[in-house]
């Protein structure tokens, strides 16, 4: 009986799409190289990350060609809240995206549905900014031609499953990255504090500022740390198995402004976990070391929050803006010479002779103790201290271009 269920489950499991952010073409290549099935990018207009280095139409075209050559997809965010003055430009922009052949656009303002349906054949995904959390709203958008909904981050597991079962529409949910403290779209702290429009790409993360908290008599409440709106990051690593079983179509990683190291690490770990579960359901085991790598990469605590109902005081972050930049990322592999076994590296953080490092990539995981390091002229050096410094060291097993190096912990 149990075997039968397992067999049946194995047959119906559909491997979800792993969807990664890309702030520029380099990060797009890294995301796809490390195992993303699709990337989402912002155009220079109408996207919600004004500070990310956004893509021009030419760059979008180049990205789509590159991704399609790997049988992968590119989605373009067109998810700002429109003001009157943007209405005229949107139609021609959508037509251009359609002509380029992007795989979908991610929208939040429903006025775009009508324009896109009338003038293009673009596939439409509804952004998490629309905060869809129930079957009635999902049904409405399905009727209007939305093919996929990125659910609000406040949805729990039962709600997600219920929407999938009742509405029959593709569902995308976040699996990793920063969380808004507010309901998406219902925060304009940036507008009030910095005059930057949070719903049009200007979010200045006021939620991470420190405030004094006062009682109703306006007396200060003395906590050990100041009040902030800030919450811990999201990580769904331990629930990947359940999310696959529940039939979520796409697993989304947050962070178009993140570094290539972050993207490579997060995408690589989730790729590994998704594959290892889907390829051998019966033998799948959760690996705590994967969780550790994710934690070290972001230097911020990451928990599940709404999905498993643990969105209580333990999800708050009261450290203010004290998180330190990541020093684990040591460099990028530029080449490997199979004959002399020398690997050419571009430095990202300080490392030295004697360090134990780990080289990782889509097909690489090598642990190495650095016994010798050479500079560009093949002189022995002890320390690699300069940003982007080119150095060499030896490694017996083959590694590949765009593999990354981190300190072994």
């Amino acid at each position, binding site marked *: 009986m149990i075997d039968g269920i397992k067999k049946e489950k194995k047959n119906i499991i559909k491997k979800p799409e792993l969807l990664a952010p890309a702030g520029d073409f380099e990060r797009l290549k890294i995301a796809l190289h490390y195992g993303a099935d699709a990337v989402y990018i912002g155009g*220079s*207009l109408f*996207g919600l990350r*004004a500070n990310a*280095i*956004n893509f021009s139409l030419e760059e979008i075209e180049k990205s789509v060609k590159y991704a399609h050559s790997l049988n992968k997809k590119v989605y373009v965010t067109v998810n700002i*809240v429109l*003001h*009157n003055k943007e209405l005229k430009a949107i139609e021609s922009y959508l037509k251009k995206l359609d002509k380029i052949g992007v795989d979908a656009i991610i929208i939040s*303002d*429903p006025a775009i*549905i*009508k324009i896109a349906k009338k003038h293009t054949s673009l596939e439409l995904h509804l952004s998490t900014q629309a*905060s869809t*959390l*129930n*079957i*009635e*709203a999902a049904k*409405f958008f399905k009727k209007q031609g939305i093919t996929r909904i990125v659910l*609000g981050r*406040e*949805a729990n597991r*039962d*709600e997600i499953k219920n929407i999938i079962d009742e509405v029959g529409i593709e569902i995308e949910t976040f699996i990793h990255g920063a969380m808004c*403290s*507010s309901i998406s*779209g*219902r*925060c*304009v702290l940036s*507008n*009030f*504090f910095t*005059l*930057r*429009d949070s*719903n049009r*790409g*200007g979010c200045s993360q006021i939620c991470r*500022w*420190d*405030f*004094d*908290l*006062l*009682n*109703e008599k*306006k007396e200060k*409440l*003395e*906590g050990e740390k100041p*009040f902030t*709106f800030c*919450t811990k990051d999201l990580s769904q690593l331990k629930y990947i198995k359940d999310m696959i079983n529940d039939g979520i179509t796409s697993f989304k990683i947050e962070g178009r402004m993140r570094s290539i190291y972050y993207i490579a690490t997060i995408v690589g770990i989730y790729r590994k976990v998704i594959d290892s579960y889907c390829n051998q359901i019966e033998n799948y085991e959760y690996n705590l070391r994967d969780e550790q790598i994710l934690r070290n990469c972001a230097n911020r605590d990451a928990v599940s929050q*709404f999905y498993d109902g643990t969105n209580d*005081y333990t*999800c*708050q972050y*009261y450290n203010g803006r004290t998180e330190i930049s990541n020093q684990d990322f040591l460099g990028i592999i530029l080449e490997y010479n199979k004959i002399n076994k020398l690997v050419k590296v571009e430095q990202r953080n300080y490392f030295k002779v004697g360090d134990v490092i780990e080289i990782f990539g889509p097909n690489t995981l090598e642990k190495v103790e650095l016994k010798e390091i050479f500079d560009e002229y093949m002189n022995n050096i002890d320390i690699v201290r300069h940003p982007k410094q080119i150095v060499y060291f030896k490694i017996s097993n083959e590694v590949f271009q765009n593999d990354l190096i981190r300190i072994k912990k």
Partner: protein
Amino acid sequence: MKIMIIPSSLDMIKKLINKFDAIMIGIENMSVNMPNFYSYEDFLDIYKYLKENKKEIFIVLNKNMHNKDLDNLKNIMFKLDKLDITGIIYYDIALVNIKLENNLKTPLVWGQEHLTTNYMTSNYWNSFGSDYTLVSNEITFHEIIEMKNNSLSKLIVTVFGYLPMFVSERHLIKNYLKTFNLNDNSKINYIENKDNVYPIVDNNNGTIAYSSHILNGIDYILEMREHDIDYVLLNSFLVDAYKFEEVLDMFNNVNDKNRQKFKEKIDKMFNTDSGFLNKETIYKVKKND
């Protein structure tokens, strides 16, 4: 142009009954951003009184709905549909679907707070039974007028009160108190930054933070009237009842001669500003903009 208010109490409704045309009422467990919430049964008493006095009633059902809220939501919408309600203000699109699928007659008010920023989207929701739009507080006076000139829906524009700037399902005050083992039973808290103090409320539905200043839009009233803005909204949240009455009197009686005097008077009564009516927010893309 009609005057709409958000009252803080039943006493206030009775005291001001001859000074407004329309009113917004919050319903328990279904509304956010309101000074108080009524059970459906309590609302029926208020409804009767308001109808006797020929007032337009707008019901606020503007929380984000989860599946578990849908039965209660449908129940209330069906009951309201049997009354003479001018409009139901919504944030969650579930209300649009419920209205359409059940052929409910009560018009809806597209009230997605910060998202109601352009006429095309207003017209989109109008085509699905939203006869009114509650305009975002973060657009300029010029944008409001442009919206009015191109919208099929009637517009409601906030002209007085604290403005909501953050809504969360998280209990941010309770979380802070628990983390640092503090006791405080305040109904309203405040957060302070650079000498500005912002009201913040943590209740059953989560946490809401408001602007540090009260919006005083009396200076724009005559132009709004001239451009046929349909409703102007005054919110009494955290405002003393007697002061709110005084403000309401001024908004009812403002004219060319007294508007500067009224503006200065309100500015002296409260910590005010003109919100975003004359301030455009920045929409900036670093590269390729």
